């Protein structure tokens, strides 16, 4: 009897198996995307604090005893700051208390005052109210990451310090602002002063070297393989080679850089030059594969038209085919550069893990790169570095998003459907 309306029990269980299977699929996608959201979300949450910073105003005595108007640079600025803090909170008399008191402002307070005095000579001889960068513990307390109800012995700040901070806040001597110095400072042992400028410049120099090498070489190699290479064993070997190179672990490229570039050729260790070269060897396969794909997409009629006009194969390629393929090649290159920007392991091998305070001036000086900076900060014990690390990751992710968007825009804009 034909009956396809009342399902048998067997059919019912098959139907529920179907539903289960679908839910497995949805579940898998949900778990993967939830992981992405949680990871990026937690980093955004942790890192957002690093973009604001806390400054504290202290009245300092710049009278003639402290600063000599003739030679202001010779003053003992650090002592002036300490004296000012003592004057603000005279109840701190014990050594240990005083040390805590001095710890309210960053270690650099002396330099900050020096810069202030040299920039404002009018202030010499007066009682000036100067803004200092607050210490990392101070900053974290105000951001609410520290739980005041925890037992005193388990906190980094004692009740006394919290009391001082609360008084400063009550008196209007504390302000929060955008942390510009995060983008204008180099690395520092003090989290409140540490910035990513030197790492950013290091990354930029490294990428520049990487681009200058891998872009021309990649494009020319792709042109040869796609347009001129005869179909023989030799071309096969190159092709297989490139495909395999794309899957070699990145750290192996670092080993190559260490043994060849540093030890054999004696190039300067830790420099963007070596870093860029190592990364370019890594991105080369990506660029070649992308460039070949876009060269292949140029229809043969264009080649034939050029050849029919009497252009040589080389001319036909460079005058007609390559320019048409260029947007696609550029897109692939940007994607490759984005990969290079996020790469850490090979840079560790060639010594770009140094503690770099100053901004590197050339591709031969020791430098570090943004991902390596993240790696270094992630290891730092200070609580405030957690925030900085997350903030550096946010900057890195934003740069990657920008590059990828650029690639997408480029593709949309210039993509030709032949």
């Amino acid at each position, binding site marked *: 009897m034909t009956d396809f309306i009342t399902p048998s029990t067997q059919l019912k269980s*098959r139907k529920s*198996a*179907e539903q289960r*299977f*679908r839910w*497995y*699929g949805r579940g*898998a*996608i949900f778990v*993967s*995307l939830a*992981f*992405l959201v949680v*990871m990026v979300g*937690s*980093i955004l949450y942790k890192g957002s604090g690093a973009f604001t910073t806390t400054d504290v105003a202290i009245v300092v005595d710049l009278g003639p005893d402290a600063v000599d108007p003739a030679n202001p640079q010779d003053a003992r600025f650090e002592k002036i700051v300490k004296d000012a803090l003592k004057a603000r909170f005279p109840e701190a008399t014990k050594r240990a208390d005083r040390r805590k008191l001095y710890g309210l402002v960053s270690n650099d307070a002396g330099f900050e005052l020096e810069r202030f005095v040299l920039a404002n000579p009018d202030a010499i001889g007066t009682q000036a109210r100067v803004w200092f960068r607050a210490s990392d513990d101070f900053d974290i307390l105000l951001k609410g990451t520290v739980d005041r109800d925890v037992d005193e012995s388990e906190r980094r700040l004692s009740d006394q310090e919290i009391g001082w901070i609360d008084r400063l806040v009550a008196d209007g001597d504390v302000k929060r602002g955008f942390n510009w110095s995060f983008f204008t400072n180099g690395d520092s042992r003090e989290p409140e002063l540490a910035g990513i400028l030197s790492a950013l410049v290091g990354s930029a120099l490294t990428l520049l070297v990487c681009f200058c090498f891998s872009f*021309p*070489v990649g494009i*020319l*190699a792709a*042109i*040869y393989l796609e347009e*001129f*290479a005869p179909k023989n064993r030799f071309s096969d*070997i190159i092709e297989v080679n*490139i*495909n*395999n190179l794309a*899957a*070699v*672990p*990145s*750290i*192996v490229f670092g*080993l*190559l850089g260490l*043994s060849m570039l540093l030890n*054999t050729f004696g190039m300067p260790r830790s420099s963007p030059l070596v870093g860029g070269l190592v990364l370019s060897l890594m991105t*080369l396969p990506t660029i*070649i594969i992308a460039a070949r794909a876009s060269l292949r997409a140029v229809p043969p009629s264009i080649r034939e038209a050029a050849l029919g006009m009497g252009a*040589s194969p*080389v001319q036909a390629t*460079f005058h007609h085919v390559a320019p048409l393929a260029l947007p696609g090649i550029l897109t692939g290159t940007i994607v490759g550069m*984005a990969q290079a*920007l*996020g*790469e*850490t*392991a090979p840079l*560790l*091998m060639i*010594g770009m893990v140094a503690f770099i305070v100053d901004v590197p001036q050339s591709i031969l000086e020791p430098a570090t790169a943004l*991902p390596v900076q993240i*790696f270094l900060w*992630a*290891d730092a014990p200070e609580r405030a570095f957690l925030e900085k690390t997350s903030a550096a*990751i946010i900057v*890195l*992710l934003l740069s*990657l998003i920008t590059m990828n968007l650029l690639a997408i825009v480029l593709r949309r804009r210039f993509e030709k459907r032949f």
Partner: protein
Amino acid sequence: MATSESATIDLVHSQRKKGFELFVMGVLILCSLVAVAVTVGIVLSLLFEAFRFFERIPLTDFLFGTQWSPQTALRADQVAAEGAFGAVPLITGTLLISFIAMCVATPLGLMSAIYLSEYASKRSRNLIKPALEILAGIPTVVYGFFAALTVAPLLRAGGESVGLNVSSESALAAGLVMGMMIIPLISSLSDDVINAVPQALRDASLGMGATHSETIRKVVLPSAIPGIAGSLLLAASRAIGETMIVVMAAGLAANLTANPLEAVTTITAQIVALLTGDQEFDSAKTLSAFALGLVLFVTTLVLNVIALRIVRKYQEQYD
């Protein structure tokens, strides 16, 4: 005759132009040889340094030794001054973490691929696919940070609450996060593979009253098995070669264990540990990093070659 003379000139390229073209050709060939040169460079430098290492430490000790403690060399005249270089704990550690990663990534990646290629509407596919690819675009140092500072403490706290002792640098934390990282690798390759299965096979199965999931499980997946195997091999090779996650989350303790709650170390993490910081280049300690690098390179290369061959064969089957 003036006309015939000009005709001959027109038909023959000037010598200079010919020379230029030859030069361009030379440059092109040179550039495409760079890729070969890189491979040769990798092989030579790894072999050369590893050979120097094996002059001091016998190959068998390296491959079969179960003790790894290169840091013990204090004085040159010390007994066993070079430390112990048995790579077995590193290899098992690498395999353990990669295994955990594959256990996470295979079901998630495969089911995602199946859902996207068989069930999802075109619109949600266009939305979800790029979102999954984002996972592949995030730098590994970010995963490492997340694994070390968020996942590991969570696992530790979770373990404590049920009375388990989870190491703060457990293989599980590194493996879980690494698994998430390789999901898009598996899902996008498997997606291609599943899409390549001819519609006629699906029609045949659906046409005789199989449900969609029966068709997928009994017809589509079996036909796609070789391609899926290839994508899993590529993912495994990626997991074995991954560095930053294990450096940051797995630690350096060379334990010979299969317990995912304990700390293990991997080949890549040891290479980083051996070669960062100050180093004298001729010690067995630094040279051992190249021996490890050689092991890593050969392993991943073999996996890749097999994977690419399988995938290519598979593609030819349905072309």
